[in-house]
């Protein structure tokens, strides 16, 4: 019996080998063809004409025409040209050829998503595969990559707010899937609501995105849409003071926000002492604010990262837009230099009040104030794999007063430039290499005559600046279906000049060059690694590590900053999220606590001043309600700070002082609270309600006798309602209502006799006093109209329409009346603007 079974097995083995050999021989059978180009169907027909029968899933069949150079090809070679051997297997049954999916294989689809027509790459487009409950988003260059099991029929949904959703079948024969989405931002009833679904599917929390349309929908100060002022309407974000662009996030201070313009830091993002930001909203593509759960690629600030991305320029046609307002006018032009290859975008803005009043000034007197911005961007596509971007920004404010022979001048401004190279190594690996430069500089010039001589005999010029040069290399690698890796490296050289005074004093013209604070150079290096890991359909985590080293003079600081976020999807419409992040800040802003000033100085960590640190945890939910008509996000957070700095009591307010002697170090702080956002993005009525409940405290040994005290901007309640109602395509109304608890202050409460017998003042504990609350209503009426040449919008409205006298400052004077005096900045301010697009 045993020997019979052995013989049977041997015969079966021999038969199988013989069949294999027969199959191999069949695959090597040659088929004659005429050299030339063939459609896939034509080649299939050729094979079947040779006596074979093919059976295959259409998704595996290549969609490209095939070039055949020779007159004979083996069957195997032709099958490999028709069906990618990486994903398909061939089974022969005699003359029947069965093509099937390979088992256990994943396939990666990748591509770019652009705006149809202009070719503008779209950032943050949602790509969702419903069958797998898996998705991704495009990166800041419009690229995406997603890995899925091979043996699946898939439909990918591409959705983005303001654009028509597209659904595409994904087929293994075509893994490079570039998509163009149609802009339908005017018809928001049709705008995809599904764009907001991805919020509940992303591990990233504590993040809000706004596109250009959403920025312009917010009724604006003086009718000037403003990126930084728009941030004030988001939950967890407060304005520092009335009319000021500085924003405060989750109990942090204004310098703890990293502001990036096309990936380059901007150190002073304000014009006109903080009343306007440096970003021309016409040139902005989108804005992203991250308040917590920071991805590992970010570092250097404690409280937020604001990414402002400028338009790239239309690759197909020339377009322009502009606006004329009461305060300034702006103009943007974009278009192709070489169609579908190279494009440009240029945008400028300037105030013009000085041009109007100067002719009317009396002789010998001159007064100038203006600000202006210029953005320039070039974009060149070498191939699908390589693209180059070049961006410049220059902005300036200038004040000059001259009355012979005396003069006073003050100018400040930013300059940024970045060269970026995108390279696609393959479907899974994307890279971006950037070379960047940024500079902020201010100069104050005074010249006076003492009266002894007719000419100026006292002159001084004060300079302060910070400039960075650096290189950054970022990679995104779609490792597998479950893992998406990001990693990169950055080096920045900082050159700080906190203050240099050049002074000429006296009739003898004695020159004195005084280095008020020595120039400081530092090296800032970081590397990061992050993995977005989808454990299963419902649960995904993002784990990262940001490692940083900072060298300045004899001091060096190193840190490892872990980052973590997680998502658990309860249902299709509800998810739970959590995050934790450690951050470190190596450069500091010495700022006046009351208002933003261009003389606020950026300084480096040193031997005496350690980097500031923070850590933050947050828990939250995201939901889509009422059939996806409403988006809900709620979060609670706790944040701790250490190594904080603050000005010493009565620190010298003169510019020319050694800053390290003016500050306290080693402070600690905390901030905690709740945030709520309810947003409606489609339909005639769009907008959101944002509420924040928060506490923020500080402790320094030298302040308040070492006791904890409330942070200046410890505002308990913060409520913002912003909406727009479109009555028709030619008329809409927008409104904002803002309410917040007053900020904190230290005020006098009593008089007493001091130890020298003099009358002195007793104050509250530090920041124990709460200023009157802040609230106002802004409204705008907009009349858009299509014209033969494009589109125009006439808008008028008012800021603070019920004329609330909000406290800018409250102080008490030590005079007999003993009254408090409140300064308010803006009463009701009407505005009118005319905007056009072509």
């Amino acid at each position, binding site marked *: 019996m045993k020997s019979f079974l052995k013989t049977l097995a041997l015969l079966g083995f021999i038969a199988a080998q013989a069949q294999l050999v027969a199959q191999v021989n069949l695959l090597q059978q040659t088929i004659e063809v005429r050299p030339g180009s063939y459609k896939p169907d034509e080649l299939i027909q050729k094979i079947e004409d040779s006596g074979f029968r093919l059976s295959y899933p259409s998704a595996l069949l290549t969609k490209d025409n095939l070039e055949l150079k020779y007159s004979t090809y083996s069957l195997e070679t032709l099958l490999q040209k028709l069906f990618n051997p990486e994903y398909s297997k061939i089974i022969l049954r005699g003359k029947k050829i069965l093509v099937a999916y390979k088992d256990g294989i994943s396939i990666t689809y990748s591509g770019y998503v652009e705006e149809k027509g202009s070719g503008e790459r779209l950032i943050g487009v949602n790509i969702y595969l419903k069958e797998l409950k898996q998705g991704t988003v495009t990166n800041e260059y419009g690229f995406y990559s997603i890995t899925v099991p091979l043996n699946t029929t898939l439909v990918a949904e591409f959705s983005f707010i303001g654009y028509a959703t597209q659904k595409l079948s994904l087929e293994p024969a075509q893994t490079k899937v570039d998509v163009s989405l149609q802009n339908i931002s005017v018809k928001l009833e049709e705008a995809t609501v599904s764009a907001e679904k991805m919020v509940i599917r992303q591990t990233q929390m504590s993040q809000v995105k706004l596109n250009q349309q959403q920025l312009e929908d917010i009724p604006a100060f003086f009718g000037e849409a403003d990126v930084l002022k728009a941030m004030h309407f988001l939950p967890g974000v407060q304005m520092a003071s009335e009319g000021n662009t500085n924003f405060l996030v989750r109990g942090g201070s204004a310098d703890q926000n990293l502001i990036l313009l096309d990936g380059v830091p901007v150190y002073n993002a304000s014009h006109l002492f903080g009343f306007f930001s440096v970003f021309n909203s016409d040139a902005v593509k989108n804005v992203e604010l991250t308040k917590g759960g920071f991805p590992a690629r970010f570092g250097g600030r404690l409280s937020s990262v604001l990414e402002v991305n400028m338009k790239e320029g239309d690759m197909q046609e020339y377009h322009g837009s502009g606006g004329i307002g009461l305060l300034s006018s702006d103009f943007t032009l974009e278009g192709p230099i070489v169609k579908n290859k190279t494009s440009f975008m240029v945008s400028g803005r300037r105030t013009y009040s000085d041009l109007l009043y100067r002719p009317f000034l009396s002789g010998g007197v001159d007064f100038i104030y203006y600000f202006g911005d210029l953005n320039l961007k070039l974009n060149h596509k070498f191939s699908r794999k390589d693209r180059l971007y070049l961006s410049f920004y220059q902005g300036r404010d200038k004040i000059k007063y001259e009355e012979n022979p005396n003069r006073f001048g003050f100018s400040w401004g930013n300059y940024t430039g970045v060269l970026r190279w995108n390279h696609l190594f393959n479907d899974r690996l994307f890279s971006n290499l950037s070379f960047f430069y940024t500079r902020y500089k201010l100069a104050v010039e005074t010249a006076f005559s003492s009266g002894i001589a007719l000419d100026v005999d006292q002159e001084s010029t004060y300079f302060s600046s910070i400039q960075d040069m650096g290189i950054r290399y970022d990679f995104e690698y779609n490792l597998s279906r479950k893992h998406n890796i990001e990693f990169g490296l950055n080096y920045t050289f900082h050159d700080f000049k906190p203050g240099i005074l050049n002074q000429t004093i006296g009739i003898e013209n004695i020159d004195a060059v005084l280095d008020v604070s020595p120039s400081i150079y530092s090296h800032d290096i970081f590397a990061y690694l992050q993995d977005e890991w989808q454990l299963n359909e419902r649960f995904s985590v993002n784990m990262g590590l940001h490692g940083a080293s900072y060298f300045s003079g004899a001091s060096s600081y190193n840190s490892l900053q872990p980052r973590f976020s997680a998502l658990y999807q309860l249902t299709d419409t509800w998810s739970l999220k959590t995050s934790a992040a450690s951050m470190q800040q190596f450069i500091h802003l010495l700022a006046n606590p009351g208002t933003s000033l261009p003389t606020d100085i950026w300084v480096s960590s040193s031997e005496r001043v350690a980097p500031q640190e923070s850590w933050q945890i947050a828990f939250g939910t995201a939901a889509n309600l009422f059939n996806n008509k409403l988006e809900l996000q709620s979060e609670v957070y706790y944040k701790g700070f250490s190594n904080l700095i603050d000005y010493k009591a009565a620190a010298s307010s003169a510019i020319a002082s050694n800053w390290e002697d003016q500050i306290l170090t080693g402070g600690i702080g905390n901030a905690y609270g709740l945030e709520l956002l309810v947003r409606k993005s489609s339909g005639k009525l769009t907008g959101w309600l944002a509420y924040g409940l928060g506490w923020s405290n500080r402790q320094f040994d030298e302040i308040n006798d070492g006791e904890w005290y409330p942070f200046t901007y410890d505002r308990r309640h913060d409520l913002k309602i912003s909406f727009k109602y479109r009555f028709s395509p030619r008329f809409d109304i927008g409104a904002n209502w803002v309410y917040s608890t007053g900020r904190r202050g230290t*005020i006098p409460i009593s008089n*007493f006799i001091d130890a020298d017998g003099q009358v002195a003042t007793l104050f509250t504990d530090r920041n124990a006093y709460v200023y009157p609350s802040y609230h106002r209503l802004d409204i705008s009426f907009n009349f858009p109209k299509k014209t033969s040449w494009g589109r125009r919008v006439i808008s008028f409205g008012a800021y603070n329409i019920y004329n609330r006298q909000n406290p800018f400052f409250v102080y008490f004077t030590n005079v007999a009346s003993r009254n408090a005096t409140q300064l308010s900045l803006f009463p009701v301010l009407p505005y009118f603007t005319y905007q056009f697009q072509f």
Partner: protein
Amino acid sequence: MRKLLLAIPVLFVSCTKSFKEELPNAPDQLVLNSLLNAGDSLNIISLSKTNSFLTSNRPPLLADGFIEWSINGAPFGPITPCDSSQGEPYAHYCNTQALREGDIIEVKANYPGFEELYARTQIPDSPQIENIRLENSDPFMATHTLYFDIQSDTRKKEYFIVEVFSQTTNFFGQSLHEVQLTTKDVTLEMLGVSSELIDLPIDDPIGLKCFFTNELFNGSSKTIQFSLTQTVIGGGFSVDKLFLFVTKCSPSYYEYQRSKLLNRLTDSNPFKIPVQYHSNVKNGIGVIAGYNLKIEALN
């Protein structure tokens, strides 16, 4: 310069509103003060009460309180209101116990309706100053350079205040004026600036009083160097003498003097965060602080 820049946003101020702000509920507190110098035989203690900031009345002195005083644990009393022979208003309290270096003084005060006040201080020993040298580098501009060494016991933290006074004579008689000090030593905190110099750029620390502790001494002694600039030039004044005042302070005396000067510097500027006077009185405010002043003539 920064004041001018701060004024610019205020130019945009649409309106100012004057009103009686409701101040936080600040009940009256008792105030107890006494600055006690080694060697003094007349010690004056002040007891008063706070009043509302919104009143222009002077805070009242309290003559009917009960003051207890002890030195080195031994009670000394009763402490009664001063009389006219002691040259002080009746509402202050006087005692004539001589104070010596190292004495620990404890003061308690009681007044109806208030909790008992308590404070404690110690009289420091005398500051050790050596090698005083005064160089007159510019007789016309009345600028001098002053050097001296100061010794310290590094086993404990010690606090110092240094001032220089000029004695001038005019037809009214003799008077003392504080002299501006400038130093290149960044470990010295200079506070109080003459109004004539307040708008000039400040490169080296400059002030009327110099504050420092022995924490930044390198060893047990430190050499101090000041440039002295007398802003009184001409005008019928003549400078007779210069005096060096070196005070070794108890921590409370040091913090009181420092906080008072900082408070004065911020008082008129609404954009600056006010500085609270230092207080070491439990259940009240004020300061009971010992010090030891040494005066050396420089010329």
